[in-house]
């Protein structure tokens, strides 16, 4: 599904990704763990080309993406992203947020787009909020709308960058619940999170990053019970 080979990325003199190799299989949930600054967000943003890597390769669906030649807009259509701070469009209603890209990018008919949007809203439990503006919603509701908005493009893979980190603790559950449901439907997901419970329960693979490298990759029961490196042991002691 997604194959990353020897990815390098620097910001000025700061090397943030130091040769990442990672394969994400179809229908899998991969959870990225690691301490702050280890490059998790940067890796995620390289997968949908919000960030351009310096060296290495990204393959999506057996196609190598060359960002000078490939139409990146087409790539991004197939790679949904959910941000820590939601990034809903404040001048549009919940419904308008969701139908924007299907109408203007996929050229879907408005009626059809609204129909799908309402189905997605029902799925994330917010059908009655269709006409509201984002500022009327709680953080958890905003994030669920953001998930619906990304799903509306029918992406082949969903990227989540700390989707619950900006939420009040009591609102985290409702967002994780939606994500669990997506996982159970077999949607391919790459999730950066500090929610260890979610990682244990939902992940097929846990990837532990440290200082721009992948130190460990294992199924959750292995990673959480028998971490290999000193780094990951220390990390787990801190977060568990």
């Amino acid at each position, binding site marked *: 599904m997604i194959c990353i080979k020897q990815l390098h990325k620097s910001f000025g003199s700061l090397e943030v990704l130091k040769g990442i190799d990672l394969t994400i299989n179809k229908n899998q949930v991969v959870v990225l763990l690691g301490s702050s600054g280890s490059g998790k967000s940067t890796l995620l943003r390289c997968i949908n080309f*919000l960030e351009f890597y310096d060296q290495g390769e990204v393959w999506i669906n057996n196609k190598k993406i060359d960002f000078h030649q490939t139409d990146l807009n087409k790539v*991004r259509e197939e790679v949904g992203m959910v941000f820590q701070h939601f990034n809903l469009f*404040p*001048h549009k209603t919940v419904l308008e947020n969701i139908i924007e890209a299907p109408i*203007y990018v996929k050229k879907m008919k408005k009626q059809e787009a609204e129909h799908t949007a309402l189905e997605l809203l029902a799925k994330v439990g917010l059908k009655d909020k269709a006409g509201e*503006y984002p500022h009327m919603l709680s953080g958890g509701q905003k994030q669920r709308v*953001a998930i619906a*908005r990304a799903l509306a493009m029918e992406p082949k893979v969903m990227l989540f960058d700390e989707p619950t980190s900006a939420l009040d603790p009591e609102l985290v559950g409702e967002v994780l619940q939606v994500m669990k449901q997506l996982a159970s439907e077999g949607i391919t997901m790459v999730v950066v999170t500090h929610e260890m419970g979610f990682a244990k329960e939902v992940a097929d693979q846990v990837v532990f990053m440290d200082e721009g490298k992948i130190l460990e990759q294992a199924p959750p029961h292995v990673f959480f019970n028998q971490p290999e490196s000193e780094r990951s042991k220390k990390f787990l002691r801190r977060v568990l």
Partner: protein
Amino acid sequence: MIDIFLSTYKFFLGATWLTLKLTLTSLFLGSCIGIIFAFFRLSKKKALNYLATIYINVIRGTPLIVQIAILYFGIANIVTLSPFWAGSLALAIHSGAYIAEIFRGLIQSIDKGQMEAARSLGMPYHLAMRRIVLPQAFKLAIPPLGNQFIIGLKDSSLVAYVGMQDLWGAALSEASSNFQQMNTYIIVGLYYLALVLILSYLVGKLEARLEVDSKNRPNRTFKNLFQFKTASS
């Protein structure tokens, strides 16, 4: 003073109309120029960026009266511009530089996450700019643009020096025939003051609409703003 007011008001009202035409024409053109050059300033293309930087610096760095004179007398050798169009163009080019900086600042003030979210949905840059970023920037533009429009209205008085009978032009010729400089200039000053107060009032109204709207509908766009229906609907 009242007698001067009464003997000049027909003449001055005609001149007021010319001042308004000059102001509206030049501010409309200036806004168009401003938006275009704001994009040039934000462009990754070096040439466009330089062009915009030079334009903005030259315009902001030279007096408006010099710009008007150059356009009127200098360009006159190449194409003949009527005083009205020379004046309007000079005022437009002048205010365009300031408006460009206003728009650039506003576009840059919109959270980067908005553009990123739009791009992550597959929206091309220009579509994301037009549908997501600009409507939010335009909404913030009303106070600074209103301010710039007030400056533009007053600046238009300088076209009197290329022979236009705008408000200030009318005042100059009136004063040279009635020899009542002081009183004539006070009266014309009051005309400007009235125009500026009306303009500020309209800008304030527009802003208030936005405030009211943002209580239940935040960030309404220009398009929505000009549909004058009750906010509660």
